[in-house]
């Protein structure tokens, strides 16, 4: 029998009111000189995995292959730093959509769930109304659009509509949208669905800049915003109490040169009270007991208890 005291603990544990985490990480750039975009998306992928989101809950879309590219002087690796300390590609990476499969159509189909019946599970976003979804996009963008692979664009209106479809179909509980491109703010300006928190690496009229060149590889290896974001995320552990508010303040103007823009009006909670692991991690509030608890068979009426919804 659960005692009243235990019942209070249970309530505390389920305060965040989401039960699972998903991540959709998209790199939209092709060609070797866009190495930094692949490094960007793999940095976020690495953080998500490290903080607990399993591969089955991450949809990773990478438009081109950098690690095994014949031009890569460090084969099988993607670094985000000239001193080559962290190989963000790693040993245990699963890319769900790669190469020519990264298209606007596939991206919107993944978000809205309108995929052909033969699509395998690893390529589906199987989120429900209790899922917190992290959507990260990087590539080349402009005012109101994001370029996919030099061949097509997704506009901010299409993206806002896709998120609204997700809301109507109850495919997310809360959504965190992160974008690292030029004029990134324009991509979230048209959002109108509730429970979305958004951060962009630059305001309209500004370009997001890359951080530095690795002369041994010969290309820019990371973008400024994602570099500092990763630096912040590397200090976070699964049990960390760091908040989203702190994350939104990462990369002030003197570091990023562009101004980081955020959008909190659609988000009901105060970002300073939201733990970072609500979006980046997959933290289960589990208490391990060594004693046995006897549970009686109880018939419960349907409208009994707030957390039986």
């Amino acid at each position, binding site marked *: 029998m659960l005692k009243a005291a235990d019942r209070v603990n249970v309530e505390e544990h389920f305060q965040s009111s989401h039960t699972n985490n998903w991540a959709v990480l998209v790199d939209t750039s*092709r060609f070797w000189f866009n190495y930094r975009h692949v490094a960007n998306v793999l940095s976020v992928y690495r953080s998500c995995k490290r903080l607990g989101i399993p591969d089955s809950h991450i949809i990773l879309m990478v438009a081109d*292959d950098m690690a*095994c590219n014949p031009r890569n002087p460090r084969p099988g690796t993607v670094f985000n730093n000239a001193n080559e300390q962290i190989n963000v590609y790693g040993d245990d990476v699963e890319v769900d959509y*790669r190469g020519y*499969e990264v298209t606007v159509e596939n991206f919107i189909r993944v978000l809205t769930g309108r995929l052909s019946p*033969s699509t395998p599970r690893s390529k589906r976003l199987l989120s429900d109304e209790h899922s917190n979804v992290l959507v990260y996009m990087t590539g080349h963008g402009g005012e109101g659009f994001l370029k996919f692979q030099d061949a097509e664009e997704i506009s901010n209106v299409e993206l806002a509509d896709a998120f609204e479809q997700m809301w109507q179909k109850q495919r997310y509980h809360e959504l965190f949208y992160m974008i690292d491109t030029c004029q990134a703010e324009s991509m979230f300006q048209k959002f109108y669905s509730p429970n979305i928190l958004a951060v962009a690496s630059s305001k309209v009229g500004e370009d997001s800049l890359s951080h530095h060149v690795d002369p041994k590889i010969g290309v820019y290896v990371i973008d400024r915003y994602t570099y500092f974001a990763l630096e912040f995320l590397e200090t976070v552990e699964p049990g960390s109490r760091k908040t989203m508010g702190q994350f939104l303040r990462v990369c002030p103007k003197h570091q990023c040169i562009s101004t980081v823009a955020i959008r909190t009006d659609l988000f009901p909670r105060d970002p300073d009270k939201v733990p970072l692991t609500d979006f980046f991690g997959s933290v289960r509030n589990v208490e391990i007991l060594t004693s046995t608890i006897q549970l009686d068979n109880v018939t419960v009426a349907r409208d009994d208890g707030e957390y039986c919804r």
Partner: protein
Amino acid sequence: MILLHFLVQHYRLFPKSLGDVLTTYQVQELHLSQTQGVWRYDKWGYPPEDAAPGAELLVWFLPQASNIDKLWSDLVNALSGLFCSSLNFMDSKSTVIPRWTFRPAGLADEGYSLQSARVRYSALPKEIVCTENLTPWKKLLPCNSKDSECKSSAVELKQTLTLVYDPPTTNRNGKQDWNFRNTYSTSLSSQCPLASSSKIFVDMESANFAPFTLKPEPTRIETFRRVGEIKKYAVYDLKEVLGKQGKIDLTALYPGVMQFSDIVPPPVYASRYVTGYGLEKGGITCQIHNTLSENITVIYMETIPWFLRVYFNSLKVENNGATIKPFKIHYIPGKDRSQPYQLELVFRLRAQSTTKISLSFDRAFLKWTEYPPDANHGFYVNSAVISTILPTSVNNTAVQQHGSTIEDSMNDQSEQLFLRLHTESLLVSLPTPDFSMPYNVICLACTVVAIAFGSIHNLTTRRFQALDPSKQKKGILSKIKSKLFKSSNLENSKSDSSGKTESEADKSNQKDDLKDDNKDDKISNDTEPS
């Protein structure tokens, strides 16, 4: 390679993720390979397991399967998710039904292979292999699973990983020495506990002309005869070796620096290339070299994408100028946007000569949505598959089709060896449009319309009235202004470029008038400023 004969319900060593896929899509036998790079047959001989460049998939479906095309397209989607590879592009535009080239390697009912409609073959030469494909491949290995109830079944899963290293280049001293630490950054410290046998074989054939010593000492040296050739392997039984020493860092030491000399090419090798120039026509030629002193029969299979429209009457097989008539030809022409051109030939390669097969094609115009994002890179053509039976096993360590492990090849009593070769894949340019042209045209057309139409509209819809400047009273400031603006006013009123300057000029005139406090109704401009 997976050979599946019975429906499998219990999984002990066989991975469940793969087993589920195979039972759902009623697969009897599946061969999937992913390759990065090109195997140099003329320098390296034959690989243990031959594979096409890029990704290649060959599937036989169970006899009771129906609607195989649908099963195939669902299967490639499921496999693309399982192996993190774009196998879903293996649709009807790139899939063929080979007739003679492939035979089931596992258990099958008699006469099964004659019903070739149950087989499907496709290849994606552009597909890359990287860690993301090795991660799921590694997860199929049984050594992470726990032991559970065993149920007998006839299932075989064969996973092969082939890597090529070049020690004299990677070593700084020019010697051919190699060891596990340098090659794999670690020594071998454990073997799979579920394995009934775990062995390392070192091919000692090259020790005849470049002797080397192995450390630690092998468990035994096996010398055996295979198809008339003497083969020598050093065998390490890992159960014994690891039991004694705990780990093994296998090292081969050569006494001196590598001696380079002419390499004797293997019995049969081939090279294939694109011929012709320009973006209208072209040709494909394949040269197959036979260095043996006897004739051998060869099956040659090509799959050419639909946008290279092949002329079957241009097919020529020649040897030193003499035309060779193939024993059998199987040709299925392609259909635009639905199926590729498929060619299978069975013919004889004359001893110690080169046979050339050539075809010509026309390049098609694609619709602008059919081009990939990097259209100027070109389009890939599958490699050709050459199958033959050799009377010798020189340069060949492959395991035969009826065997499973390298040990089986030691007991191989057959007098002939089956050989499969894949040629290089080809890269062909198609006439490619300039994709920025729609944008350029829109910009140009809009600019012309805006300038020309705008000006003509202004000219035709504005009413102009003549103003007599001398009749207007002006202050000192307006006099100075009128002097300054006088010449520019004349120029502006003459130019047709925009109504704006005219109205600006008119506006300044208006201001002059107002400053004068002159309420004369001499405002001439009827239109709003542009």
